[in-house]
């Protein structure tokens, strides 16, 4: 009845709904061994071949925390500007599931390794700050396999005990687009600081999404948690679906209930896993089999020193200081390889930053995509690449010549000038270059061309002179002359 008294504006305002998103990103760490035992941390092995009494949860077996896991988590903490807790501890999260051998996950609840931090990202040209609530370490669960030959479920515990970090954000994201960009940035950083492979298809990075839709200017409403989100694009689809679902509920005058929902990316829908009444009670308590994790100040600082400039910062720098557009900046900044190469070229200042960027966006990116190799595995150096860019800038070599030199550098390495010389790519003999010049001269000097065709053979001398001028005197005049002659014949 109240609704009838509302003005039209009030009704409209009621429907001005805002959505708030928080993420919990799980990333598998690329340590040599699992988090609590010496078993290999390796994807794709025969089922249950990387297991031992500890990770199988056999009676009497005890965990031992992998030191590297702490280092990696602290590095990520530094990367996201988190407070690092010099003393933290592990807790047990209790629930029953066939992929969880001990029926509890050893995780961190009260005192995680890393506390509050933040990440600045560029979304459609604007800088956004996303608050980080915490980063903690925990163990992954096993894998359940459904096999056509077997009516039940098969449990493979190779993944069980693989170390994870869980990055929890504040509810600071407001669209699926922002969530996507945030996730991309997180992935970039994980690769940059070299602590995770982030192989989506191997499930090494996954996320849970919390979505809440509420009226603008009112407190946050009930949130729904979306589980089973296995790719970034699935996160986008899941979020959009959830926003629409909640908006529909609110517009129909109902309340959104707190739920845990499962995202089915194939069907593009989410379904209720747990409703408000039976939300999980994990009964967290301190893990009595482990002591306190104590990290000395020096260790924490040493790890801080190991953090390079991160891709989100680089991106902002490339856009603001180097005048790249966001896409260009992302392509370079996202890849530690490319960014390193670019930054080194800029530091050498042999060539213009722009030409280095273009070469990296073009030839380097193509090479990496085609071969799947990283630049670090090739003999290509920033110096050689800069010399190449410089040669192209100065017109010493043609663009086709430059591509050939690049391939040579990236496959065999060597000195740029020497390669240009050896392959005869210097403009004075490089056919491509001479052709380019000849064509330009022909198109620029219509009058002389028609004179020549009309029989005035001395017009050729004029054209050759123009071409020599264009090549800054480097071209071989005889070769140039014959190329021009040939072209002019064709014009005829």
């Amino acid at each position, binding site marked *: 009845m109240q609704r009838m008294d509302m003005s039209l504006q009030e009704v409209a305002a009621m429907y001005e709904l805002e959505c708030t998103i928080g993420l919990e990103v799980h990333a598998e760490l690329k340590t040599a061994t699992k988090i609590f035992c010496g078993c290999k941390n390796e994807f794709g092995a025969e089922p249950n071949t990387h297991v031992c009494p500890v990770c199988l949860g056999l*009676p*009497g077996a005890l965990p*031992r925390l992998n030191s590297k896991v702490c280092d990696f988590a602290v590095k990520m903490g530094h990367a996201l500007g988190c407070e690092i807790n010099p003393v933290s501890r592990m807790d047990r999260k209790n629930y029953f599931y066939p992929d969880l051998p*001990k029926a509890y996950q050893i995780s961190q609840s009260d005192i995680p390794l890393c506390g509050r931090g933040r990440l600045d990202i560029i979304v459609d040209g604007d800088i956004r700050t996303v608050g980080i609530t915490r980063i903690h370490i925990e163990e992954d669960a096993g894998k359940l396999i459904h096999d056509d030959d077997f009516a039940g479920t098969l*449990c493979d515990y190779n993944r069980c005990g693989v170390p994870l970090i869980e990055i929890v954000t504040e509810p600071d994201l407001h669209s699926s687009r922002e969530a996507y960009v945030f996730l991309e940035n997180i992935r970039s950083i994980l690769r940059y600081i070299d602590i995770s492979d982030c192989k989506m298809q191997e499930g090494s990075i996954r996320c849970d999404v919390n979505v809440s839709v509420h009226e603008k200017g009112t407190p946050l409403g009930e949130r729904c948690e979306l589980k089973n989100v296995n790719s970034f694009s699935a996160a986008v689809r899941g979020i959009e679906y959830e926003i629409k679902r909640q908006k529909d509920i609110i517009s129909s005058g109902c309340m959104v209930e707190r739920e845990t929902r499962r995202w089915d990316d194939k069907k593009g829908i989410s379904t209720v896993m747990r409703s408000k009444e039976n939300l999980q009670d994990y009964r967290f308590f301190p893990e009595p089999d482990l002591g306190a994790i104590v990290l000395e100040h020096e260790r924490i600082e040493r790890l801080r020193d190991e953090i390079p400039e991160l891709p989100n910062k680089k991106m902002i720098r490339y856009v603001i200081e180097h005048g790249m557009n966001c896409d260009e900046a992302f392509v370079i900044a996202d890849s530690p390889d490319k960014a390193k190469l670019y930054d080194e070229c800029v530091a050498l200042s042999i060539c213009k930053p722009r030409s280095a960027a273009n070469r990296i966006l073009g030839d380097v990116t193509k090479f990496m995509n085609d071969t799947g190799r990283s630049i670090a595995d090739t003999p290509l150096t920033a110096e050689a690449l800069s010399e190449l860019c410089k040669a192209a800038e100065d017109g010493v070599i043609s663009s086709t010549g430059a591509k050939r030199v690049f391939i040579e550098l990236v496959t065999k390495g060597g000195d740029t000038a020497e390669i240009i010389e050896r392959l005869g790519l210097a403009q004075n003999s490089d056919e491509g270059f001479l052709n380019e010049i000849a064509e330009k001269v022909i198109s620029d000097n219509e009058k002389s061309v028609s004179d020549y065709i009309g029989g005035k053979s001395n017009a050729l001398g004029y054209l050759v002179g123009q071409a020599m001028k264009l090549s800054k005197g480097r071209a071989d005049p005889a070769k140039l002359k014959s190329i021009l002659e040939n072209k002019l014949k064709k014009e005829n």
Partner: protein
Amino acid sequence: MKLYEKSAYEIAAMLRSRKCSAKELLHDVMGRARELQPRLNAYITFNDQAENAAENADRLIAKGGDIPPLCGIPIAVKDNISTKGLRTTCASKMLENYIPPYSATAVELLEAAGAVIIGKTNMDEFAMGSASDTGAFGAVYNPADTAYSAGGSSGGSAAAVAGGGAVLALGSDTGGSVRQPASFCGAVGFCPSYGAVSRFGLIAFASSLDRIGSIGRNVRDVHMLHNIINASDIKDVTHIPKKFSKTLCGSLKGMRIGVPKELFDEYISDEVKSAVMNAVKLMERAGAIIKEVFLPSASAAVKAYYIISSAEASSNLARYDGVRYGFRADNCTTPAEMFRKSRTEGFGDEVKRRILLGTFVLSEGCFDRYYKRAAALRQKLCGEFDDIFTECDFIAAPVYPNAGILHGAERKPAELYAADICTVPSSLGGLPAVSIPCGRAGNGLPIGLQLIGRRCGDEELLDAAYGYELAGGGCDV
């Protein structure tokens, strides 16, 4: 004197001087154990590889040279300590057929020291109980009088040692499970400092309290056994570095012994009180200085103990879900159903009660009121112990309020729990404690004197216990 009645150190000397062979010794002790089995039910499984181990020991002795310290000595192992290839049941239907693929560190150390593992001893299911009567393999009877329980939960180990069915035994002590049965059976039971013996392979009941303890017929024997299992082990991060053993000298001269009045309260029976006080007086005559001390949190400690131990147990025992090992119920259509049915059918009532209690105290809304307060009380109790140990070297106390527990006596679980008042404080404090016989009750059952030492003061504590023994302490004084 029969071989099986001799102490470990006597036997060690006899073996070395070839007065007997390990094989003869094993036959004698195993024969005794089997003879007692129908009466005491001390064992769940006898080790059919024991003979081989004894033969190996004889070969080592024949070779001469460096003979390992426990070479050829028959030792019983509580059935919650993993023995590779030898069934380890925790006296539960849940693990009735479980054969560990690895051995506990303590067992590996025993084997490396040449010990012959005679078998696995009976106990309360998953070590939860005070009378060794909650297990799936029947109760353990007291060798002194089979109308009485051997105590628990290491009842089988204590009964076997006291009756001659083992020379030494390993037990486990979470809230008194080595000390209490040792006192009921008239044996010496030693619960070392938390972390002094690796827990790796000890099937967990309550991880922050569980310890592997040694049971023998005298302090020197217990010292000998503890010495072997007290070794560094990286597999247990809660383990503390090895304390190098000293030769026991047994002098009580000038030792300050604190008597906390809270552990001699009205619920301690008169005969237990007077037996323990007589023991204290005996130590005084041997040169010790007796002081009255205070442990104000003693009675709250029992509450804290049951909260913490049950909480940890509820989580530790969650892994028994029928997936990887242990009992699995038939005809289940979903994993959830399989978990529920397997656990319901595989666990006995006492285990279920503790799991329920532990689940309850950790559940949403209860954690702060139960678990957190218990953890805080534990801290406070540790402080009280610290205070006592600034002015005392040891604490003397009873082990249990009564001399023995009658079989079949109906007792409410809560009452049975409350009776652990004398043993749980040192359990929560992680302190070493030993039970030594100090007389008999009117019913003929032995009574135990408990001595509690400083954390990591295991050697000093055993030395004091030895001093009491030298001063004439024991069952029949």
